[in-house]
């Protein structure tokens, strides 16, 4: 699916930091990736790894006081340079967003029809009510919501139906790129499968590129063309889903895959240590305090992005580049204060 035409979205070295009382939180700290037309990219990682911030940052839906730099190239334009007003013209018809908890994302006082009318009219003035209804019903049909429910209020729908409404509301404007932030976490398993199937078919039905944020690797395997693994504000590994699942290169990805529970699981695996503090992250490679293969260099120098296959990139000294390492660098790291002891004191 990965064609090599111009990417729809191209992120270069994006940083999003929040200032808190304890200091700056490096929620997203230098992230780069491309997304092509009709492609679905899964973004996985532990909670607190900066996934949601990255997703919101792409639409620049960040709280006041968050600071960003780097580039978000969308159709050749850098969204980072756009004013609030210009950004509004992008949000909706170009960039869509689907949120985690569908129960509270619809205005309880507005009918579903009013939500659609508002969204369409903001971006296409002069469209009459009948036309809005025609477009809305078309999307709702794809989502499996009967047209008789068009004038209902949000509280009259179940959680799964509300999430389908949210998707329909995002898609009625035909955006070319959609961020879905854990769209099924708040739903039960059967409904989850429905939503994933809908998202999977987006490409066929709407030709939409999708960034699917999730902590569920099963969903990624099922619905995503490519997968990016995020750890402590950075993408540590990115590649096609098949490749990454079959042949994970980063120790974190390997640990993540191992800790997934499946029917064939015989024992529970978990990653030792706690997720890093993003105010004061570990030096150099952020994973080295928890890494079973950590070397001297890992605590010393930032790892470089290394290509380990077609479209498969990893940031880990285990995979080089060797010309930047010296003899002593590859010795096993003496783990001293970093793990356990200091935290428990």
């Amino acid at each position, binding site marked *: 699916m990965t064609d090599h035409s111009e990417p729809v979205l191209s992120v270069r070295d994006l940083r999003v930091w929040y*200032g808190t009382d304890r200091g700056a939180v490096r929620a997203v700290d230098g992230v*780069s990736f491309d997304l092509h037309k009709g492609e679905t990219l899964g973004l996985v990682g532990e909670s607190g790894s900066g996934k949601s911030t990255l997703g919101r940052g792409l639409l620049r839906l960040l709280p006041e006081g968050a600071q960003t730099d780097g580039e978000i190239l969308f159709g050749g334009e850098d969204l980072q340079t756009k004013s609030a007003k210009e950004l509004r013209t992008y949000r909706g018809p170009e960039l869509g967003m689907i949120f985690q908890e569908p129960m509270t994302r619809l205005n309880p006082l507005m009918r579903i029809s009013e939500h659609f009318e508002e969204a369409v009219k903001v971006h296409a003035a002069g469209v009459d009510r009948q036309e809005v209804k025609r477009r809305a019903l078309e999307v709702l049909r794809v989502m499996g919501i009967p047209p008789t429910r068009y004038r209902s209020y949000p509280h009259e729908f179940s959680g799964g139906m509300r999430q389908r409404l949210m998707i329909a509301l995002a898609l009625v404007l035909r955006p070319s790129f959609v961020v879905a932030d854990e769209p099924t976490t708040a739903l039960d398993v059967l409904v989850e499968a429905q939503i994933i199937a809908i998202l999977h078919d987006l490409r066929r039905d709407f030709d939409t590129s999708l960034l699917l944020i999730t902590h569920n690797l099963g969903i990624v395997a099922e619905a995503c063309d490519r997968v990016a693994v995020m750890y402590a504000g950075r993408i540590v590994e990115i590649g096609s889903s098949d490749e990454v699942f079959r042949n994970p290169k980063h120790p974190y990805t390997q640990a993540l895959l191992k800790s997934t529970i499946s029917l064939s699981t015989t024992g529970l695996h978990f990653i030792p240590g706690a997720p890093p503090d993003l105010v004061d992250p570990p030096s*150099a490679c952020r994973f080295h305090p928890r890494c079973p293969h950590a070397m001297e260099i890992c605590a010393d120098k*930032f790892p470089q992005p290394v290509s380990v296959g077609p479209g498969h990139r990893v*940031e880990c000294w285990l995979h080089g580049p060797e010309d930047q390492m010296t003899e002593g660098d590859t010795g096993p790291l003496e783990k001293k204060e970093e793990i356990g002891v200091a935290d428990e004191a």
Partner: protein
Amino acid sequence: MGIARTLISPFRQTSGLARWILLSGLLLLLAFVILAVFAPWIAPYGFAQVRESGEMFPRNGPPSGEHFLGTTEGFYDVWSRIVWGARTALQVVIISVFLSVLLGAPLGLVSGYLGGWLDRILVLIMDALYAFPSLLLAIVFSFLLTDLFGGGVTAAAVALTVIYVPQYFRVVRNTTVSAREATYVEAARAIGAPKRTIMAKYLFNNVVQSVPVIGTLNAADAIGTLAALGFLGLGIQPGEAAEWGYDLQRALPGASAGIWWTGVFPGLAIVLLVTGLTLVGEGLNETVNPTLRKRKLRPFTLPPRGAAAVQAGKGQVDL
């Protein structure tokens, strides 16, 4: 010790706006407390004094050297009435807030602890009293009490007490109910700690937080209601003590004739004291209920790329 720490803690927890609100409220309040406590030394004349060394004060005399805020149509000195009025106001408010805690808290405790029909009836009555316009309630009571006790400070304070009892009742009752249901009460009982000790501790900790807030806001309201009663000719009678609301009522007919000093100054005293109490209450509230505060992101500057690595003295920069 514990109480002192609890009382001081809001001050240490506050920051920015909330601290300013609390501080300016306390300053205003302090000014009135000084007026009230030292009234005999601060006020040049008695509150009902109309002559000095045999000479009558002027009637409706404008501010002058002798009477620097003027005199009223009843020959009183305006400034002295304000100073003595502060004493009356604070006396009434302290007594009524004290009485309503004394009455509301035990009732709430009993109601919440025993539950059952007694609880239901008390809740119903308190809710009805709470829904009733508070001024009208005060009118009814001071109407009764002035007939029974005469129009002094005590009668006025008791009349105001009734308005505020339901609020303390409600807080203490709800806390008691949740204390009874709190799982750790059960847990502690299983260990062998007497239930009453645990409930008392839980109650004390929760009530001590909310009562000062309700108390100060009620005090602010009580000042206004006391003045309203005085303004309507109820409450404190002129011979008993100086009262700002009564003075305002007497000043009203002169207003259209341009006699401003008899009304403007006592009114200002009410506004300042109520504002002071409200600010203290709000300031306390914002510290006791931190959810009202906005979690604010701190300003900072994004360091240039790789600065983290450079700071750590580790040279190599990512990407």
